[in-house]
């Protein structure tokens, strides 16, 4: 482990990761930045913080920044890490809205955006498959997935109802049973 970084250094490292992590996989960029290059964390701590980030609401990359920033430099560290992480992408996307204001009605930019959207569906499908491979085991999990999707996309049930209803059902299904060990029912 290297010594505790200054707040400015912390902000800067997250700002660079936030500005260079093009194409999704921001978690991979975070690992190579924080674990490999800066050595602020080891892999075990990284995976542990990542698990918390994924279990809680919020964007994974933002949650990771907050947890790592807090671990290294407390409250100010958490705030600066999250800010550095978000600023470059948010600035670019704000600029995109202004560019769109000038050129959004042009047929060529419509054609571009529509085709990009189609490509993005392919990307989200891949994310879906990868998430599913990690998070799902056993038929019941797939039933909960299908139920959630059917309620939201098929029947237009507002997400909070589906989220709370199906999560409660799924937690009850996986509830700790005496004698089975903590949660190891499969």
């Amino acid at each position: 482990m290297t010594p505790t970084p200054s707040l400015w250094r912390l902000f800067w490292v997250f700002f660079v990761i936030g500005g260079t992590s093009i194409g999704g996989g921001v978690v991979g960029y975070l690992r190579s930045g924080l674990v490999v290059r800066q050595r602020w964390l080891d892999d075990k701590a990284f995976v542990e913080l990542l698990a918390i980030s994924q279990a809680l609401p919020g964007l994974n990359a933002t949650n990771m920044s907050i947890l790592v920033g807090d671990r290294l430099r407390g409250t100010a560290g958490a705030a600066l890490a999250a800010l550095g992480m978000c600023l470059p992408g948010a600035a670019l996307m704000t600029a995109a809205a202004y560019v769109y204001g000038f050129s959004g009605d042009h047929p060529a930019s419509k054609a571009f955006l529509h085709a990009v959207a189609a490509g993005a569906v392919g990307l989200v499908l891949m994310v879906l498959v990868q998430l599913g491979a990690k998070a799902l085991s056993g038929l019941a999990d797939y039933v909960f997935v299908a139920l959630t999707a059917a309620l939201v996309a098929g029947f237009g049930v507002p997400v909070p109802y589906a989220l709370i209803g199906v999560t409660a059902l799924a937690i009850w299904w996986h509830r700790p049973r005496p004698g089975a060990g903590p949660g190891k029912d499969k």
Partner: protein
Amino acid sequence: MKQYLEIGGVFAYLSLLTVGGGMAAFPELKDLTVDVHHWLTFPELLGYYSIGQLAPGPNMMMVASVGAHVAGLTGAAVALVAFILPTGVLTFAIGRLWNRLADWPWRPAVQRGLGSVAVGLVLAGVIIMGRGALTKPLYVVLAAVVFGLLMLTKINPALPILASGAIGILMHLYA
């Protein structure tokens, strides 16, 4: 002022739905920004969402685009802060509590239950996105090719998505 409050309220609410990643909030994002508040059209939202896939940093920085689209720079800042702050504070607090929860017997059940529902919300998001984006055979083919490339190779996802856009322009010009 009222508009900033509305933007803040919508994105603070959406942030709480982002379990397992930003995509989980997509169904409500579409519903609230397009159907309820009429801040932008569905194709515009899809456009921002898709450009957002090309931007660096956390996914869903496109909330700044929606904010800017409705109410300029201030709108972008309000949308971003509202989208980050509530879950950020929650993560901060739970991060400090987590070690004490390590032996909580319900923890694995909560993690697995939330995991399935998060995947289900992403699936719902893909379905809703697909209804808006895959309106012609060409678009279905593009989505399928990008999906195939990303599953089979280690290519940076930004490249095939940009290539899709280029193909879209070419087809517009020459087909």
